[in-house]
């Protein structure tokens, strides 16, 4: 099960970087504004094409830091799984990894808010719904991760005590 989960997480991290590269290319293409892109934007947004181009580029650009945060989440979770497979899950280093995952998740939530604000602006200038809504589950996950990291830290301290108990 742990091995299967590890494979899934590794695959997701590769997919994450593919998305990061694609969105980075999209952001650069929007900023460079070649004739084809300018034409598509003009047809979609009319006179607001210039503003829409900057907003779309910003949304695509937000995927890059989100991708770095996701990379932190995947790699730290993989490291925690490896420690669990080795029979040593309750270690201080795993508590630190879980806290890193919590901070990365918080960063993703903040980036999501920024993307949401941009998407709402884009919806207003184009009169089309760009599909963003506020969700509590991500923020609850952040809280849960910080609590779990704290519990892991206490568990690791107890484990260290137990190791030295005769």
């Amino acid at each position: 099960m742990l091995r299967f989960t590890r494979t899934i997480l590794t695959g997701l991290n590769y997919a994450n970087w593919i998305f990061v590269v694609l969105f980075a290319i999209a952001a650069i293409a929007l900023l460079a504004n070649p004739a084809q892109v300018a034409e598509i934007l003009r047809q979609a947004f009319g006179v607001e094409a210039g503003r829409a181009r900057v907003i779309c580029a910003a949304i695509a650009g937000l995927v890059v830091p989100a991708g770095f945060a996701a990379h932190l989440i995947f790699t730290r979770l993989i490291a925690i799984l490896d420690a669990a497979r080795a029979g040593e899950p309750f270690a201080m280093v795993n508590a630190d990894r879980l806290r890193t995952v919590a901070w990365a998740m918080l960063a993703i939530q903040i980036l999501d808010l920024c993307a949401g604000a941009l998407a709402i602006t884009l919806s207003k200038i184009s009169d089309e719904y760009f599909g963003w809504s506020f969700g509590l589950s991500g923020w609850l996950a952040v809280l849960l991760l910080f609590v779990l990291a704290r519990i892991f830290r206490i568990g690791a301290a107890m484990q260290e005590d137990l190791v030295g108990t005769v």
Partner: protein
Amino acid sequence: MAIRIHLDNVLHERRMSLTELADAIGITLANLSILKTGKAKAIRFSTLDAICRVLDCQPGDILAHVPDGDEEDAC
């Protein structure tokens, strides 16, 4: 550590080796060695009870508290 272990002295008085004690109380020689060398962070009451029973002694014969300032002098 302000707690010092005098297991060696008691074993010497009883003419008993650490291996024999480990066998008698049913814990590993490695763990008993950790206790003897003062590297243990804690000792279970069950372990202390078994040691006292086998060596026919009191916890105070094995454990002693040395105030931090006096620890270096005692070494």
